[in-house]
Each structure stands twice: as structure tokens, then as C-alpha cells.
């Protein structure tokens, strides 16, 4: 996270200055070997990503067409497009962000600007970290128990928003805190010195400079919500619905759930392969596109910060 804050270390020269012994050569050779091994690890990681993306591109690209993107599924979902799934996923992830963003930003402001180190802060942080580690299927059951059943919202967009919203909360809190950390304390001091109150300082000085960082975080949150499956399968998404969502109480179709359903539960798994590939490609294009945008945005911010 704080990668660019570290200084590069001076690396000692490979050879000693006066004379090179056999022992020195061995040490250098083992270093060379070990570093090649580390490079190999990176290659494995990069290859994994490349193989998955490449495979989806090769197999999925032929399925993508204007009608695939804009039509509803037909004939028991064996033909037609995925438009309702795209709409469902976009609605679900934007709504989740509407829930998570205000709460997450406010939590981060408390943790970074107000809270003093102590027991309360430690407990809150432990809570946030643990929330981040809750399995997504457990979020799904929680949503089923609380929103769908106890609050009687049913399997609906609203239940999905709330479930995904709490699931994304730690992402938003983490990235917002990072954004707040990057605002120089001199900004705050200047504002306080001019007689601004704490709140005026936060609202007029800290938040505007942290805004691009918060934006990065919310993009990452949206992409996390868009790819989530287990949390929506009991709360918002359905197998198939012929109706487009009309209200917040409508159930929806969603891209990740559509992939899962077609790939595992249909009677014609082989026949619908092209639709599965196409849907997976659309989903990763959406998710990776947002992530790349966030990564570039962050890199740009860091460059701006250094100047």
C-alpha cells in the first residue's frame, strides 16, 4: 500500500572491489539463481491471469454481438441475449454502493479524523477487519435471514443492495482511510489555524482533497459487488425472470448468477456453452475495466501527489 513511500536501498556491488574469491562467485551465483526463482513466481502469477483472460477472449468473443447484449434470453435460456442480466448487475452494484459509500466514508472519517488510539478504536478496527473476512455465502445467509425474511423484503433488489452494501463496506472504509492518510496534515493545520472548526476542516479541506481517492475506492467497491455471486443467490438474483425490474421489490437476473446457473444447473449445459463464455467475458470486461480505471486513477493521483 505504502509502496512508493519507501526509499530504494543501495544494493551492494556484486563483486568485491579488490579481488574475487571462489566463495564470492558461489554467493553471487546462488543469489542469481534465487532471484530467477522469484521472477519465475511472478511469471506463474501473470501466466494464470493471462490464461484465464485469454481463454475467455478466444471462446467468448464470437458470442458477443449487439443482439446478445441487448436481447432477453429466449427458449428456456438456450438462445437470445443477456440484457436483463446486465441491467440486474448494474442496478445491484450501483445500489450496493449507494448503501456502502455514505456509511463507509463516514466510518473512515471517524477512524482517521476523530478517533483517538484506544480500546474503542481497536474494537472498531477489529470489527471492520473481521467483516472483511466473512465468507460471501455467510453474507448471503445473513441477507436471507435479516432482509428477505425478518424485514420481509423478499428476494428483491433492495435485499440485494443491503446485503452487497454491507459486504462492500470494508473495501470502502479501507480505501477511504488510505485517501485520508494521503491528505497532508499541514492542510488540516492551516484550516484550523484560520479558525475553522474540525467539521469545517473536514468538509471544506480534507474531503475535497481526498475525493479522487474515495472515487477510486468506490469504483473498486462497485466492481467487487458486480462480481459477487454467493451473496445474491438467496437475496436478489433469480434463475430466470421474464420481467425487467419495475421497483426495488423486484427480483432480478445477474451476470455472475447467470453463468453459474447455465454452467451447472441446466439440462443443456453443452448447448449453452457459447452463452456461458459470452456472459463470463462481459462480466470480466466490466469488472477488470473498472479495476484498470481505478488503478490508473490511483497512479495518476500518486504522480500528482509527488509534484
Amino acid at each position: 500500500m505504502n509502496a512508493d513511500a519507501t526509499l530504494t536501498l543501495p544494493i551492494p556491488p556484486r563483486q568485491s572491489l579488490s579481488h574475487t574469491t571462489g566463495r564470492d562467485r558461489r554467493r553471487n551465483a546462488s543469489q542469481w539463481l534465487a532471484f530467477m526463482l522469484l521472477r519465475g513466481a511472478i511469471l506463474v502469477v501473470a501466466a494464470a491471469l493471462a490464461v484465464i483472460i485469454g481463454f475467455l477472449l478466444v471462446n467468448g468473443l464470437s458470442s458477443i454481438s449487439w443482439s446478445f447484449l441487448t436481447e432477453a434470453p429466449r427458449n428456456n435460456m438456450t438462445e437470445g441475449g443477456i440484457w436483463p442480466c446486465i441491467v440486474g448487475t448494474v442496478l445491484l452494484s450501483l445500489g450496493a454502493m449507494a448503501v456502502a459509500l455514505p456509511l463507509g466514508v463516514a466510518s473512515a472519517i471517524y477512524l482517521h479524523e476523530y478517533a483517538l488510539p484506544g480500546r474503542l478504536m481497536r474494537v472498531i478496527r477489529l470489527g471492520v477487519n473481521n467483516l472483511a473476512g466473512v465468507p460471501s455465502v455467510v453474507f448471503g445467509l445473513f441477507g436471507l435471514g435479516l432482509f428477505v425474511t425478518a424485514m420481509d423484503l423478499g428476494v428483491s433488489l433492495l435485499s440485494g443492495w443491503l446485503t452487497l452494501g454491507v459486504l462492500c463496506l470494508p473495501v470502502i472504509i479501507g480505501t477511504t482511510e488510505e485517501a485520508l492518510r494521503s491528505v497532508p496534515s499541514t492542510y488540516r493545520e492551516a484550516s484550523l489555524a484560520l479558525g475553522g472548526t474540525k467539521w469545517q476542516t473536514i468538509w471544506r479541506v480534507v474531503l475535497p482533497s481526498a475525493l479522487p481517492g474515495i472515487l477510486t475506492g468506490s469504483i473498486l467497491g462497485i466492481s467487487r459487488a458486480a462480481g459477487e455471486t454467493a451473496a445474491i443467490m438467496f437475496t436478489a438474483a433469480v434463475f430466470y425472470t421474464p420481467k425487467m425490474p419495475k421497483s426495488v421489490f423486484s427480483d432480478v437476473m445477474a451476470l455472475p448468477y447467470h453463468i453459474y446457473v447455465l454452467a451447472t444447473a441446466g439440462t443443456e449445459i453443452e448447448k449453452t456453452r457459447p452463452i456461458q463464455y459470452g456472459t463470463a467475458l462481459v462480466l470480466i470486461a466490466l469488472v477488470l475495466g473498472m479495476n484498470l480505471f481505478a488503478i490508473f486513477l490511483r497512479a495518476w493521483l500518486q504522480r500528482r501527489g509527488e509534484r
Partner: protein
Amino acid sequence: MRRSTREILIKQVFLAAAVTSLAVLALIMVFLFMEGLPTFSFVSVKDFLLGLDWYPTDEARPDYGILPLIAASGAVTLLSSLLAIPLGVMTAFYLAEIASPRVRAVVKPVVEMLASLPSVVIGFFGMVVMAPFLQNFLGIPVGLNLFNAALMLAFMSVPTIASVSEDAIYAVPRELKEASFALGATHLETLVRVTFPAALSGIGTAVILGMSRAIGETMVVLMVAGGAAVIPDSLWSPVRPMPASIAAEMAEAPFRGHHYHALFATAVVLFLVTLSFNVLADYISHKHRQTGSASL
């Protein structure tokens, strides 16, 4: 309203927001226990946790023993950690110590993108590519098995392990490394004997978080692990880890029937495992926090 009262009020609003996470965590526990505890009215805790048979839909005599599911989760997680820990830690060392800023600017996003791949896509890949490949290449009867699931999970936990370890390596004070260099150690020797031990607690945290991610991951094991609720006897056995069982059966379980409650109770077990992993990670990272150059 006076300025100072308003300030206090605003602070309280932010505090309330910050406590939401805790409240949600508490609510998750309440709902899991509320729906899960009734399980123990029809099966004892011992038979539930140690029972060898999971036949919740049997009409005549349903069995609710989740030991095969626990064993499957454990096996998948351990195997995936064996693959992911070396890969993740090596990636972290490469990024933190060896890569030039230019290479880093490319490699770091690659790791982040791997982290952001939706799990359903990785599961799909495991199903349609890895499973037939394993079947043909190794001549095994089923490609959807323990090994395949562990392999897919490994690629999901590598980014977690790598990024948390990387932070730990960065936190090692510069003075320690400089001292090592000054004594004539090579970069590798410094890395192995100074940086690695100094970052060890952070790397431990990273490993635990990675394992916690693997054990709770749902879609991959649901699609790839094979689904047989038996205790695995080889790398190639089809298995049914806890999250897979919950996700696959919840839709069909009659509302508030025995099966429904048993699935919630399984989720309680899963939740308690990940919770203890996360608390342990938090404990280690606080206890052994690197506070200065003197703490090696």
C-alpha cells in the same frame, strides 16, 4: 445551534457510522445462531460435528453429520495454501525488493487484477478448462475434484498473501538491511537472514488471511470441487466443502425445516472458523508490530 454543540453532534454521527460494521458483525452472528441453533434439537452437537453421513434430504432417516464437509474444507484449504504460500510470498519479495519501479508498475496491477477476478469466473474456468485437462492428462475419472478446487483457490489467495506480505516487507526498517550490507552480506543473504525474519509476523498474518479467504470461498468449491459428501481419501476425490454445501442446498431446503437449520448451523461453524482466523491474524499483527529498528 451553538457551534460547539454542532461539532459534538457531528462527531457522534460519524461514531455511529463507524460502529455500523461492528453492529453488522453482531447481527450476522445473531441471525446465524438464531437459525442455526434449532439444529441441535434434532441432532446432538457431537453427531453434527463428528457424524460421517450427510444425507439431509433422506425421507426416512435423514443424517446431519458434517464431518465430511469439514474435512473437505480443511483439505482444500491446506492443499491450496501449500501452493499459494510459496507463490504469494515469493511474489511479495519480488515486488518489494527486486523489481525496478518500472517493472513494479506493471506487475503490481497484474496481481491486483488477479485479486479482482470474480470467483464465479475462476470456478467456470476450473470447470470447463482445468477439469477436462486433468481428466485427459492424468487419466483420472473425475476432473472436478479436491486438487482442481485447491488449485483454483490458490490463485485466489495468492494476491491476498502477496499484498499483505509486501506491506510487511516494506515495514522492515532500512537500518537493519543497511547494517547487513555493511557487514558484507549480499542482497540475497540480507533478504533471507534479515528481511525475512523481521517480516515474519507480517507474513504469518498474510498466510492466515489467505487461508481464511480460501476456506470461505464459495463459488469455486461449489463449481469445481465435485460435490461428493465423503471424507477425501486422495487428491483426486470429489469433495463437498462447507460453503459449497450451503450454497447448493439452501435453495431447495424447505423454509425453517430441519435441513434449513442444519445449513445455518454449518454456516455457524464456517463463520466461527473464519472469525478465529481473522482474530488470530489481527492478534499476531498487533503483538509483533514492527515499531522501530530494535525489534528484530
